[in-house]
């Protein structure tokens, strides 16, 4: 495969997901940091490449792709080894459903850009803790039915890839994780996996 450039911010949970996926699949990449705190994502150089003005983004042969879910599915398409979905169609859909409870229902409501804007509107940050807390109650309930060693049986899937970065955020916003024993157990297990270790924010070149 042609060289892959991965645009990331060390503490972006969406970047963290893609980072896990790249490591899990053993794909080589060049890490380029985009400092969200300095507004680098709006800069002329990066802003032209990714009009969505977000990280993560990958570049292959001069072409750019954003949105973590689209990137991860693309990686799974072109690198079928270490699949992130079960092979059965319905089970694959159930894994997507669980992952989307994080991708669509939790993370967007607590991301940096939205928080900044919300606090301009209403001036309260504990909203974020509440969002994650509420979302994790739903996720805990859902995965307590499906979990084995991991979120969906005993295979690492997209749900696990999305879960760990969201737990990282939860801890950062001081969510009481003792409420979520299944999430906590699985997170602890996943944090020992080499791909998840390599992708951890504190191990990134731009980590503060």
């Amino acid at each position: 495969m042609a060289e892959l450039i991965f645009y990331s911010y060390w503490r972006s949970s969406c970047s963290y997901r893609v980072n896990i996926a790249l490591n899990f699949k053993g794909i080589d990449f060049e890490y380029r940091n985009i400092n969200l705190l300095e507004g680098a994502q709006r800069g002329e150089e990066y802003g032209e490449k990714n009009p969505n003005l977000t990280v993560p983004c990958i570049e292959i042969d001069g072409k750019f792709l954003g949105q973590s879910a689209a990137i991860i599915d693309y990686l799974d398409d072109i690198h079928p080894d270490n699949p992130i979905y079960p092979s059965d169609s319905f089970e694959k859909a159930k894994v997507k459903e669980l992952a989307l409870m994080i991708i669509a229902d939790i993370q967007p409501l607590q991301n940096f850009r939205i928080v900044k804007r919300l606090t301009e509107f209403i001036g309260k940050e504990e909203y974020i803790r509440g969002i994650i807390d509420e979302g994790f109650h739903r996720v805990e309930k859902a995965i307590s039915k499906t979990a084995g060693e991991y979120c969906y049986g005993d295979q690492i899937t997209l749900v696990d890839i999305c879960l760990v970065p969201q737990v990282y955020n939860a801890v950062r916003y001081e969510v009481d994780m003792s409420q979520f024993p299944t999430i906590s157990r699985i997170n602890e297990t996943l944090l020992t996996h080499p791909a998840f270790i390599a992708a951890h924010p504190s191990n990134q070149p731009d980590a503060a």
Partner: protein
Amino acid sequence: MQLILLLFKLLIANIAVGVSRSTMCVCYSTYQKSNSSMVLYHYKESSCSYRVRIALALKDLIKDRDYQLKVVNLHKKDNLTSSFSDISAGQKIPVLQVDGKFLGQTTAIMEYLDEQFPQVNPFYPQDSWERAKVKEFVHMIVSDLQPNQNLTVVRNLGKHFNAGTDLKRSWIKFVIENGFSKIEKSLEKTSGRYCFGNTLTMADICLVPQAVNAVRSEIDLNNYPKLSKIVQNLELIPEFETTHPRYF
């Protein structure tokens, strides 16, 4: 007399539409498993539900006599009942019931349908990269935009922060306008008659319901000329028209 006759005819016509809708559309506050092979739990004001209705229509599944719609009234909080929590752990709609099993989250549902019926109006291009580019666009709506202006979020603004109606409206407008300006920029590069050239994709299925939300929030779509033109083109397609919220 003529006027009375005309009004009477209109009344009969409306009753006929109402009856044909009501045979399909059942309103429950408690939910029991249906014997139909396919059931969609939905709500007229939910743009997520509209996406899946369009998808089902495009896959030609709505003509199936076994297909049934069940209303989950979000304003009455039907989704928060304990019987609905057996159907959806996340207590969200839409949910598709297929052969007795439940599936939530719109892109999970629509991609499942796309895999089951790949020959009928495929939702994505065949090429891996092009497919990824369509998904990128889809997530600009599904992940970035819609979640931040949905009913739960707006309710939370009121519940936790005493946000009044004006503040809630401003928030919704901000989220949609912010998202649409990025979408318009993206469409300048990819669009033809539809979001991606002249072929219908998942991007179009997600765009139209979001445009309905925008119009409801009194956003002027003419500020986004590419987006506006594409939505006009899409609204002419029967599968987008017949599944419009106005009919539910």
